Each structure stands twice: as structure tokens, then as C-alpha cells.
């Protein structure tokens, strides 16, 4: 044990290991960059050709003189689309949507999955059977159909509804992992010890069991964010994602499909944006998995 590990909790040690993982750090850099884009899009949007300020979101970034321009022309490094909208600007504004879809979907999935999974694992018996069968049912049901069903209920689904629907589809994965973790921890001696101390079940679950599930949950969450970004693109592609004006990356892909021979940049760049973001989250997730692996030693 090195002296630098003195007084460090297992979580702190896991993050130390993560920082030494080059790939994971590369992933984290991509993720950080996307977060930056999402929070400060206007600062990073390129100036208009005539030197005027950042594009207004409302205008949909249209440049009425520069329809369908290929990448590299002044003011439009990634070209413009069929309506004269700057592709780079839309991608930058799309980062916020992708991040929100990833986070909201994952948070909803975590809320449902953590509660159901931990209750099933901790209580066992009939409660476990019921929740587990419910989980299985959700797993077996075609998720796309479920999504379409949920979205059909709402007349005009907004962002929150669409993103939450992703969480409703994604929770069984979380629930299963949490349940397994809780079951393996439930019988451990320190849980028995907390019980012998007179701690209530709720306290034991929140104070002792769940913190020890943290690693796997962080890992699935990160990977799930990536999955949700992809899923949103897929939904947009099917026409049940965000409605047209929104600069969602999936939406941009859909819009590009009629022009892919004449204007391939319309699809290539949003596609690359999705690819790098998903890759970034996946690398980070894999790195977290390694860092939280109990078998890992410094």
C-alpha cells in the first residue's frame, strides 16, 4: 500500500485508477467537451461570414445566401444544409439535446431501477418474484413498440416526455444489476452486523447496501447515457423523436437522407458527432468499470 493511499476511501481510490487510464481519460475529455458545447453553445458557434455575431436559435441559423454549400466555405466550415442552415452550428446546439436525452433518460431509469431492484433484492420472497417477473416482462416486450405506445398517449410529446420514455424502457437493466448486487451484499457479515446493531432495514439499505452497489451503477449509467443518445437518434429517424425544427443529431440525420448523394456532409457530420459522443461515454464507462473492479489493486 503506497503512502499516497492513506486515508482514501475505496471510491477515491477508484477515481485515482481512472485518472491513470488513458482511454478513459480520452473518453472523459470528449464527454467534457460535449458538456461544454451543451452549456455554452453560443460562445463556440462560428461567426457569420459577414462578421455578425452568433446565430440566433430562433432563426434556425439560416444563411439565406448560402444554400447547400459544401464544407470549407467561409463562415460555414461544415457546410450548410438544404435550407441554408449552418451544419456546425446545428451540431453544436444539438449537443445540449443529446446530453439531456442521455441524462434524463438515464436518471429516470436509475430512479425506477434502483428502487425496484433494491427492494426486490433486499426483501426477497414474493416481492422479489413479482418485481423480477415485471422486469422480465419489460425486457421481453419490444422496446420500440413500448416507446411508440408511450409517446402515442401524449398528443404532443415534449422533450421531457420523449426522454423519460427512454428511461421507462431502460430501467429493467438497472433493476437487474442492482437486485443482483443487493442480494450478494444482503448476506454479508457487515449487513448482519448492522442488523445486530439495531439499524432499521431502510437505514441498512441506504447506508450500507446501496453505497456498495455504487460502482456497477455508475458504470451502467454511463453506458446507458451513450445508449440513450443513440436511441434518440433512432427515434428521430423513425419520425417519433423531437419535431423538425429542433437541431437534434438524429433529426439532422433524417433530414440528410434525401440529399446523401448531393450533400453528404449533411449526414456525415451529425453522424460523426453521435459516434464520438457515444464512443466517449463508452470509453469512460469501460474505464469506470475497470476502476471500480474490486479485484483491481494499485
Amino acid at each position: 500500500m503506497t503512502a499516497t493511499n492513506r486515508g482514501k476511501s475505496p471510491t477515491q481510490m477508484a477515481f485515482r485508477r481512472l485518472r491513470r487510464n488513458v482511454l478513459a481519460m480520452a473518453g472523459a475529455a470528449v464527454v467534457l467537451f460535449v458538456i461544454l458545447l451543451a452549456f455554452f453553445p453560443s460562445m463556440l458557434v462560428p461567426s457569420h461570414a459577414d462578421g455578425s455575431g452568433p446565430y440566433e436559435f430562433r432563426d434556425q441559423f439560416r444563411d439565406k445566401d448560402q444554400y447547400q454549400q459544401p464544407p470549407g466555405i467561409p463562415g460555414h466550415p461544415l457546410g450548410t444544409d438544404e435550407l441554408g442552415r449552418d451544419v456546425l452550428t446545428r451540431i453544436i446546439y444539438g449537443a445540449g439535446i443529446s446530453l439531456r436525452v442521455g441524462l434524463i433518460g438515464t436518471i429516470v431509469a436509475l430512479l425506477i431501477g434502483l428502487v425496484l431492484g433494491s427492494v426486490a433484492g433486499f426483501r426477497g420472497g414474493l416481492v422479489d418474484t413479482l418485481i423480477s417477473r415485471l422486469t422480465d416482462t419489460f425486457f421481453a416486450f419490444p422496446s420500440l413498440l413500448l416507446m411508440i405506445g408511450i409517446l402515442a398517449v401524449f398528443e404532443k410529446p415534449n422533450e421531457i416526455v420523449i426522454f423519460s420514455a427512454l428511461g421507462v424502457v431502460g430501467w429493467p437493466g438497472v433493476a437487474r444489476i442492482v437486485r443482483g448486487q443487493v442480494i450478494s451484499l444482503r448476506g454479508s457479515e457487515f449487513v448482519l452486523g448492522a442488523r445486530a446493531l439495531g439499524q432499521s432495514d431502510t437505514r441498512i439499505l441506504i447506508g450500507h447496501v446501496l453505497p456498495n452497489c455504487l460502482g456497477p451503477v455508475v458504470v451502467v449509467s454511463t453506458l446507458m447515457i451513450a445508449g440513450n443518445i443513440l436511441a434518440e437518434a433512432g427515434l428521430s429517424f423513425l419520425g417519433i423523436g423531437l419535431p423538425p425544427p429542433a437541431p437534434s443529431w438524429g433529426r439532422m440525420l433524417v433530414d440528410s437522407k434525401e440529399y446523401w448523394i448531393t450533400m453528404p456532409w449533411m449526414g456525415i457530420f451529425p453522424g460523426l458527432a453521435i459516434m464520438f459522443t457515444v464512443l466517449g461515454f463508452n470509453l469512460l464507462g469501460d474505464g469506470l468499470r475497470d476502476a471500480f473492479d474490486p479485484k483491481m489493486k494499485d
Partner: protein
Amino acid sequence: MTEVQRSAEPSQPILELEDLKVWFPVHGGVFSRHIADVKAVDGISLKVIEGETLGVVGESGCGKSTLGKAVMGLVPVTSGNVHFHSHDGRTVDLTRLTRKEYRPFRSEIQMVYQDPYSSLNSRLSVEEIVDEPLRVHHPKMSREERRIAVEEMLERVGLRKEQAERYPHEFSGGQRQRIGIARALATRPRVIIADEPVSALDVSIQAQVINLMRELQRELGLTVIFIAHDISVVEHVSDRVAVMYLGNLVELGQTQEIFRQPKHPYTRALLSAVPRPDPDRRREDRLVLRGDVPSPMAKPSGCGFRTRCPIAQESCAEQIPPMIQVGKRQRAACPHVEQFDELLG
């Protein structure tokens, strides 16, 4: 051997076990019917005297750990009672209490666990680990009071107070067990149930932890139920010894008496298996058991030990033999102990 004298005066019992049974139902078949019971503890009666160390020995699977857990209310008790004499003069049957009702008594009865690695939550610092019992049982104590109490307790078990902010993974097995002891003692309990507290430790460390426990017991006037499978350890720490076999008590008595003159055939076999540096001891004196312990799911009728007993009689199958007086302060569950030598032939 001065310590052995300390409980020469028979004093008040603090725990009284009456025909305690812990059976675990086994379900099987297509409809998960109840097909059998694992009789982990199958009718045990004994008194634990205040201030003594009662050693509980037996092979693995004989139910000694379950006995401890039953007293702690950690396993459902099938039948029987555990009377506890609380410090406020009340006597309660611990087996009849709900978890909530048991709670106030937990500050008086605490447990030390076998595995110092899995018994501490690795995500908590040492301070948080030792602090937890205080938070549960003394919610009125201030943060500062608790911090002082934790540091005092750490020093008491031979750790430095600066180590309070460290995490369990930074400590060795022996140190971790000290943390476990500090946690158990935090609420100043009167009874400590030590479930194989040293069997997971290196032999060189075992002595340190055992001596620490004995020291603390003397200082704090603790009653200790010391569960172990290592007979030499039990001989070293206990005032009295209870020998268990297949969920039953087979012999109970003063440590010296039992080790000098074991009466029950099982105790004799158990003790003759202990290597002793005695050149006069002849090989033939050793009593070696054949076969395995029967499953606690299918116990033999009558005396559980009869299938391996060298002096088993036909009558042994009829009923579980009651404990009879076989020495001054020694009782054994075998009606044939006096004829042991002639029966052995």
C-alpha cells in the same frame, strides 16, 4: 492460573437459554413443499453467568454460530426461550421480541464477527464504523462527544486515534478485528458474543487479539460467549466450556474439569485429537472417531452422537439423553459415562 479463580463465586446468570431450537425449513420438489428441517440448534439449555467467559466448541456445522445468532435475534427461533437479565433489573425473553422491541437491548449485547474482512463496511472510515452503534443507541450524544468516545475506544483496543479517518483496507486482519471489537464495545455492552473471532487470523496475531479481549473483559466486566472450533483457544480463554455436537449440548462444565477429565465420549475424542507435548502419552490412548458427522437434516434418533460413539448401546437410539451431573461442576449428556472404560472393553 489466577484468572480461572475469578468466577469461583457462582453469581447471577445474565442469559438463560431454555430448550432453544433453531430449525431451518428445507423446501423442495415441484411445489416447494416443506420436506425437512435443518436442526441447527436442537434443544439447548444453559445459563451464562455474569462476568464469565463461556466457550462454545464443536465441529463446523454443529450449530454453535447459529446459537450465537439466535441470541442476537438474527435468525428466527423455532421454539424455546432466551431470558436476558437487563441492567435495569428487567428480565426479557429475547426470542419473543420484535426487532423494534429488541433494539434497546442491543446496546447491552453485541457481537464480534469471524471474518475481519467482510464484517466491516469497506466504504466507511474507521471512525464511521465505530461511531455507528453510538448514533443508533445514543442519538442525544453530540458529534464532538461521539468523536471523543470513538477515539477513546480506538486507543482502548490498541489503535491510534489518528487512524480514525483511515479505511478498513489500510489495516491488517488483526487490526481490523480490533476495529470490530471497538465497534462492538462502543455502546459499553454487558455481553459480547464472539463468533470465532480469531479463526480467520494468523496464529501469531490470534494471541494478541485473544489477550486484548481478555484484558477488556476484566476491565469492563464483560460477559463473553466465545464461540470457536479451536479447542486450545477455548481452553485458554474460557471459565466454562460448552461442547456441542449436531445441535445439542453434550457436555458443559468448568474448563479445568472438562479438560482434565472429559466425560462424554465426544468430548474425549475431541480432546484426544488435540496435539499435546506429552512424551508419556501413548498412541493407544487416543480415541479416534470414524466416519462423518451425520447431516443435521437427518439426525439419528435419540443421541445424535450414537452413530460414531465407541460405547453406543441400543438404548441410545430411544431418546435424546438428558444432561446428568458427572463432576463437581460438570454435566454431560450421556448416561453411560461412568461405565466408559468397561464398555470400551
